[in-house]
């Protein structure tokens, strides 16, 4: 080997080195770009897995084993399609959903949407605090201690932080959902069987199965999340150029949300269903039942997951609601304002938490009825919000070239109509649990 060869080789190596560096830099740049946008989509989708949701997933795993896993794929699509429209609207118009409803549909419609939204969300907040109480009871902590502490914690977190800081805390909470993944591994499920049921649908035409199926889908998409997600993108000042990243955020959120649901169902299917404990009614009971079957840690992690989910949703819901109402009705809103600048925002926020936690603390609080009421509320409310969204996202004067394409519209309307029908079924069976001859889900 002569000198020339060696120097050529060295040069080649150096070039490869700088090439690698360049590639590394550009991929790092891409990640940085994504991080500047990421947040609203992932947070919102994960908050879907709140107290009510986890209860339903647990039941479906306990009662039907892996048989309902296939529904997760269409649910992921529905979650993505609806979420993406809001993300797109937020990014393109730079305005929140309530802003747009106000500007395009006038004061009275907005007032109606805001008032109804307030009560539906309040019921949801109560359900989240009930979830906190239930989770902490597994750790032998009385609700009279856990709920007030949680309420204060939530209140302070948001009032003392800026949007950025709060978002970081929320993103961290998303990671804590992984406790369900660990729980599922403790349960030693039959992964092959689980995978098969995820891809190949199995239909049973008995009433109980259908009710459970609708329940699963009905709890996945909550009306308030559209407002929250859109406001999140607006508050982050995501521009149209960053829309691909925003879309990725929504996609990652939808998939990760459904992945967690998968592990919850797998965990309970492998243990409770297999051992014949199929009449489990809520997540707390499931956590307790897991201990003898999959070990202490599986139970603790399961309960911890419920606590995290409830706490997480309890911090976001009041915030989102107060935000949406103030935006729509023209009051100052947002945690970047001080109390004096946005008094109505902060009062609404405080009332939602105080009343939400307060109801759970009533000695004989009918928690289970509240949980149903919140689901019924969501169900009735969802179609209204979805229709507003579809009307707005198709307005060329607002969205320009970013209006829904025909294909997307078909998918979106099918999703919307399916969601609407399914939630009606959920509402109907919640109010008249004996109508279809199925055991009441609670």
């Amino acid at each position: 080997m002569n000198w020339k060869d060696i120097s050529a080789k060295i040069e080649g190596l150096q070039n490869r080195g700088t090439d690698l560096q360049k590639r590394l830099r550009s991929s790092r740049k891409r990640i940085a770009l994504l991080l500047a946008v990421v947040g609203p989509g992932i947070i919102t989708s994960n908050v879907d897995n709140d107290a009510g949701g986890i209860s339903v997933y647990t039941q479906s795993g306990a009662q039907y084993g892996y048989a309902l896993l296939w529904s997760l794929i269409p649910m992921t699509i529905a979650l993505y399609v609806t979420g993406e429209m809001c993300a797109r609207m937020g990014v393109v118009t730079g305005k929140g959903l309530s802003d747009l409803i106000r500007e395009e549909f006038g004061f009275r419609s907005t007032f109606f949407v805001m008032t109804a939204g307030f009560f539906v969300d309040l019921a949801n907040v109560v359900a989240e605090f009930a979830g906190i109480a239930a989770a902490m009871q597994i750790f032998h902590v009385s609700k009279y201690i856990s709920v007030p502490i949680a309420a204060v914690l939530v209140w302070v977190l948001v009032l003392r932080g800026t949007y950025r800081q709060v978002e970081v805390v929320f993103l961290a909470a998303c990671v804590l959902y992984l406790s369900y993944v660990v729980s599922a591994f403790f349960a030693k499920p039959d992964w092959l069987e689980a995978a098969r049921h995820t891809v190949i649908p199995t239909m049973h035409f008995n009433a109980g199965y259908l009710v459970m199926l609708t329940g699963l889908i009905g709890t996945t998409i909550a009306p308030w999340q559209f407002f929250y997600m859109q406001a999140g993108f607006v508050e982050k000042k995501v521009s149209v150029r960053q829309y691909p990243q925003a879309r990725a955020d929504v996609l990652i959120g939808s998939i990760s949300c459904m992945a967690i649901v998968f592990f919850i169902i797998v965990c309970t299917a492998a243990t409770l269903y297999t051992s014949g404990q199929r009449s489990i009614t809520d997540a707390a009971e499931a956590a307790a039942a897991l201990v003898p079957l999959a070990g202490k840690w599986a139970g603790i992690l399961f309960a911890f997951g419920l606590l995290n989910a409830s706490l997480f949703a309890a911090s976001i819901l009041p915030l989102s609601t107060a935000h949406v109402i103030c935006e729509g009705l023209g009051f100052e809103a947002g945690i970047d304002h001080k109390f004096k600048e946005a008094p109505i925002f902060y009062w609404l926020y405080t009332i939602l938490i105080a009343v939400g936690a307060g109801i759970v603390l009533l000695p004989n609080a009918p928690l289970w009825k509240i949980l149903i009421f919140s689901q019924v509320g969501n169900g009735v409310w969802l179609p209204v919000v979805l229709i507003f969204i579809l009307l707005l996202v198709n307005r060329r004067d607002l969205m320009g070239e970013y209006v829904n394409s025909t294909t997307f519209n078909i998918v979106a309307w099918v999703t919307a109509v399916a969601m609407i029908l399914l939630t009606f079924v959920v509402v109907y069976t919640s109010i008249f649990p004996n109508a279809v001859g199925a055991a009441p889900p609670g």
Partner: protein
Amino acid sequence: MQLYATELMGAETYDDQGNFVGRVREFFIEPADQPNRVARLLLSRGRFQPLVAKYDQLATVAPGTIRLNCNERALELYQPNEGWLAVRKDLLDQQIIDTQGRKVVRVNDVDLAEQRMNGGVELRLTQVDVGLPGAVRRLLQGIVSPSVVRKLQSGLPQRTIRWEFVNLIEPDPLRRVKLRITHEKLEDLHPADLAEMMEELSAAERQGIIASLDEEMAGKVLAELDERLTRQIVEKLDPEKAADILEEMAPDAAAELLADLPRETSEELLDELPGQEAEDVRELLSFDRSTAGGMMNTEFVFLGETATRDEVLNWMRTQDLNLDSLDSVILLDSAAQFSGIVTIARLLMAMPEQSIGELKLEPLLSVQPNADEQEVFELFDKYNLRTLTVVDETQRPIGTIAVDDVVSRLVAK
């Protein structure tokens, strides 16, 4: 009598014969003609093409009923016109800038006043309602009788903005011209206030405001805005306009702005800048942002230390100096090296013939451009400085760091 647009929407309109003509659906203002006069009323007649009544065709106006002083046949057919400001579509429920209260607010209702003219009345837009009374009217209009609504609203706290302090936000530049929307009122605001308000608007609206401000104000506002927003705006601006704005900015602010832009964009803008300015900015850009060089401003006043107070003041009067931020001048010795600074207050109190070299502050402080920002902060803290001079290796002053630069850096941390 005080009238409200909400109460008049849907009002039944009759001609001079007492025949029903239609219901009021919209009020139009023609800003090109008169800024506050309701120039036209849109009257809908079910399945027939809507009619338009002009301002000089109104006889009486009362909540729920409007009478015209002409025959139905004298009314023109409605043709949409981009130059008309529509009260319902362009004003109600939209965001406006309250230039007096320095806030972005949403319009609940529009207040009108009758002005008697010979043979009729004209409606004048007096103020916009952004408070609860307007909200109550909007909510109850058509459900509860107007007299009950008026009683209800009288107890509520008022929040109104006089029409002359209302600044409309219109992202479409052509429409802005047609509606005669200038942003002169915004130019009287403090740039920091305007920047804060713009954060609440959508991207298109922010773009519209920057595009219609004069370059000097636009530059000041951009310097105050969040850097991500600044980047978004500048990237979308016409490069020529962007360069004009940059030219009006202080070199350090311009450099800071350019540093955030993608390389090609900033290079393109630098090429548009005039030579000296571009050179200054390029030099500033070459320094690391976290060093004294990255913080300094290259615009400063320097004088020979042997000059007398009067000579200095006379010379300064002839210069175009930024008096709001000037708090000291830099002294040079005969070798053109940095020899100290003199505060404006000391200059004022000195004797007319006193040489300014005698006035300079002790100790003599300066930093090199590559000094770390932490070192700069510590100097400001230790000596309670307001300005610090940056010198090159030959002791020539190349820039100054002002206390407000230090404060923004510290707040950003």
